[in-house]
């Protein structure tokens, strides 16, 4: 494997790991349920995307062909993350989860 590929893989792994960590920190730090939804749907999506990309580079660099499965996993992730966020938000509105006080606007009555 060429050094360039190794550097690219390492950089992508660190980048992906950092973003996944930030998503997890957001889950702990943000004030209420609805704001916590934002961490996993965005930061983590890019984190996993970077890790998948590094996997694609690794397997093409050692000559096993381009991994289409990794690309597919990323696509499925991008398709399902918004649906689960939407379902979580709907469920939270249904049982009337409290929002932080400085939230503008109100969730709908279900």
């Amino acid at each position, binding site marked *: 494997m060429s050094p360039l590929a190794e550097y690219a893989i390492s950089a992508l792994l660190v980048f992906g790991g950092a973003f996944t960590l930030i998503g997890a920190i957001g889950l702990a730090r943000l004030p209420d349920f609805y704001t916590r939804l934002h961490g996993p*749907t965005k930061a983590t999506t890019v984190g996993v995307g970077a890790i998948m990309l590094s996997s694609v580079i690794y397997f093409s660099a050692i000559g096993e062909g381009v991994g289409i499965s990794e690309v597919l996993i990323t696509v499925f992730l991008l398709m399902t993350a918004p649906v689960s966020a939407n379902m979580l*938000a709907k469920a939270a509105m249904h049982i009337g989860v409290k929002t932080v006080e400085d939230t503008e*606007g109100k969730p709908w009555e279900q």
Partner: protein
Amino acid sequence: MFDRLSFPQPWLSLILFLIWQILSDGVSGGSVALGLILAWLIPQITHGFWPERPAFVKVWRMPAYILRVLKDIVIASFSVAWLILSPRNPRPAFISYPLQLDHPLAISILASTISLTPGTVSADVSDDNKTLLIHALDATSDQEVIDTIYNSYEKPLMEMFQ
């Protein structure tokens, strides 16, 4: 019982079949057989959940839209990551977004896009399909969020579905 054996959505069946071949290691007799079963079974089961087909979709506009959304996802992640790490508290808001799209498929694409892009998660669609409830993580003004979504996502989608 003859339509039980048919493929109600040929494109969906074809895509399912191809994805199954890619996911299984190499095309073999077994993967073709199982792929055919899945390509038949999944559209049969999910048939009732699919919205009606749109009258006309300009599919060739889709790649540009997807590229734009991918770019925005990366930018969105940086801004959300920055917000999480910075000490100030975000200003969350619930925003009612007036929908101009009317096709259910277009609305669900828009809602998914909103969930993936800068600081917004779509929470609910009103029963008459006219309003979308959005939760914004850090909104300075409602109108700004509405304008951004309209210009970058809803307008391209309207062009695609009309």
